[in-house]
């Protein structure tokens, strides 16, 4: 009974999402559409990043590297052959990418391949590095992100270097971005609620104890890392196909910093938190433009300080860490039970907040 209600509610919410996208696709102007798209892409990136940082509790500083891998893969797959010859004028693109490109109808295939390439990258870096503890993992993953950046700049025959690749078809629309966001949330939520997810949380709470309980810590971390890499790659691919160009600077460390703010603000470990703050962040980034542009209220003249936004964001991050480490949502997750009991004005027992069966 309970399960059927939940299923119905889930279906209803999917229908609602479809209806909203359908409406938005026709009615939002391009500016708001772009923000909505960016928000959804940030959801994909942040929710997957949260799996490592929040659920497993291992600080990775390399999600920008995964996004770059995904972004370059989709660019090489989807760029029309004609464009490839035009864009790679310094050094020709190497075979086999120079010979083929996927038609727009196979965008989904392209996205999945991008995810897989990023996941392979995650595996290759995770295989040695996940044995490292705490700070060392953070440093190693940062190094990985930097190496990807250097490679992207130097491997002209594959990435066109700093010139980047342009002229990609703009395939990311609200359907793709929000569809992928929904799929990511659904899949990651299922992983977190599975026995693997419990093992991940056990690793976070006490690695040594988890190991003593018979959990293969490295394997669990690897699982989280590769999953996170997969979706990170997809988010990078979505972003590239939204703005239709890619260059190494697109996925620099600033991207990781943005994601870090999102997951910390949302509450480390909370999927709901990551998703909601991803949207908040995308909107906030636009709203905060006003602190940078001059403002004239007649009696007060605000000259507008360019660059203020990043200062505000970093202060926000520090203050969150100092005074509100739980973030907006702590480890709380949205669930139908919670909603139903709220509607029935009942108290939710503490233990039900975590599980969602």
């Amino acid at each position, binding site marked *: 009974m309970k399960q059927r209600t939940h299923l119905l509610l889930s279906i209803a919410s999917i229908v609602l999402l479809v209806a909203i996208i359908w409406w938005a696709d026709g009615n939002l102007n391009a500016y708001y559409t772009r923000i909505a798209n960016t928000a959804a892409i940030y959801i994909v990136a942040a929710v997957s990043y949260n799996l490592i940082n929040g659920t497993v509790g291992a600080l990775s500083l390399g999600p920008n590297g995964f996004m770059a891998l995904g972004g370059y893969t989709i660019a090489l797959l989807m760029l029309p052959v004609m464009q490839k010859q*035009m864009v790679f004028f310094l050094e020709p693109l190497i075979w086999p990418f120079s010979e083929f490109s996927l038609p727009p109808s196979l965008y989904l295939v392209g996205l999945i391949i991008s995810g897989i390439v990023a996941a392979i990258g995650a595996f290759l870096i995770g295989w040695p590095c996940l044995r490292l503890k705490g700070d060392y993992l953070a440093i190693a993953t940062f190094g990985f992100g930097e190496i990807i950046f250097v490679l992207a700049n130097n491997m002209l025959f594959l990435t066109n270097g700093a010139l*980047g690749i342009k002229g990609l078809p703009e395939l990311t629309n609200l359907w793709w971005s929000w569809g992928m966001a929904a799929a990511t949330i659904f899949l990651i939520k299922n992983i977190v609620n599975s026995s693997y997810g419990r093992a991940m949380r056990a690793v976070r709470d006490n690695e040594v104890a988890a190991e003593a309980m018979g959990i293969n810590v490295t394997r669990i971390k690897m699982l989280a890392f590769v999953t996170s890499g997969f979706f990170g790659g997809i988010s990078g691919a979505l972003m590239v196909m939204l*703005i239709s160009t890619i260059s190494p*600077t697109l996925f620099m460390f600033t991207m990781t910093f943005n994601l870090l703010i999102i997951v910390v603000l949302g509450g480390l470990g909370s999927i709901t938190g990551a998703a909601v703050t991803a949207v908040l962040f995308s909107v906030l980034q*636009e709203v905060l433009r006003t602190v940078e542009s001059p403002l004239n209220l007649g009696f007060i003249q605000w000259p507008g300080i360019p*660059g203020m936004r990043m200062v505000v964001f970093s202060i926000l991050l520090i203050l969150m860490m100092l005074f509100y480490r739980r973030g907006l949502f702590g480890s709380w997750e949205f669930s139908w039970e919670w909603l139903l009991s709220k509607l029935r004005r009942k108290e939710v027992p503490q233990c039900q907040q975590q599980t969602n069966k």
Partner: protein
Amino acid sequence: MRRIILLTVIALSILSMSAIAAEPIKIGVNMEMTGAVAAYGQMGWEGLQVASELIPMEVLGRPIELVLVDNKSDRVEAATATTRLIERDKVVAIIGTMTSGNMLAAGAIAENYKVPMIGPSTTNVLVTQGKKFSFRACFRDDYQGQVAARFAYNELGARTAAVLSDINQDYCVALGKEFVNEFKRLGGRIVAEQYVRTGDQDFSAQLTIVKNANPDVLYVPNYYTENALIAIQAKALGIKAPILSGDGADAPELIAIGKDAVEGLMHTAFWHEKAATNELGKQYVEAYRKKFNKEPNAFGVLAADSLLIVIDAIKRAGSTDPVKIRDAMEATKDLDVFTGKVTIQNGDAIKSVVIREVRNGQFDYLTTVHPD
């Protein structure tokens, strides 16, 4: 009583005047005000400020308003900023971005909306390639690289050259390759091709290789930050070959940082005030010095040029329809701008290249190469 009538008349006339004062025509400015290459956006914005004081800021009987948006030197932001300018602020044309990478992202958006966009200093070949609504107010990298190679081969008599370019900058990589191709075509030999990356401060390893190769000329198609340090370290290592650079060297900081090490450094440039033959250019130099109390730079003057090109196009189009403005911009011919005369062809500005040399702590005018 009479006073009251007088006051009423004055009040009424003020009221009616403000009612007549038409809606301003908005021109977007999409600049790198913060982030990695903030210096260019800031210089561009300075130029626009000077220009807006020098020229009447109205066209078709309506005032012109510049709407500045910062793109944080970031491609995604540059695209978002463009959308915002067009959608929310309803601009009829956009000036910016300053760097080619951001222009590629922003130009794609402008193309969709059919709003013309003009990059003051976006020299990358790809910027206007296949685009109807992307313009530039400067020459292209390939042309600049070729001029540099010819100058090195013919005027400096160089037969061997070394190139040290910044792999992280599309501009530097492309310029370096163009130089190499043209220099080889002329019959010269490239004895060392080395790379550095933005943010690097130590180039001793690469320069030691250059020294060992003993070239007749060292070509450094980079931005001034790297160029100044390269010159200092080249001098410290005892490299005697003359250093030739591109327009990225054009900033007072090159001299402030490089001091005597950059003496004799030559570079291709958009502009030199001594080459500023027209009245507008002289006025600009004077106004800039007065307003900012420092020497003008090319990035600012090119942004100012862009403004003139846009205003002129609006005037000739006789309309604020972006498509008509675009057509008028494409038809720009022998327009007097701050840097001289400009003609636009396929979105590219046809301009002469100025070659300058650092002499006595100043950028001095050497010669001008006119387009063929």
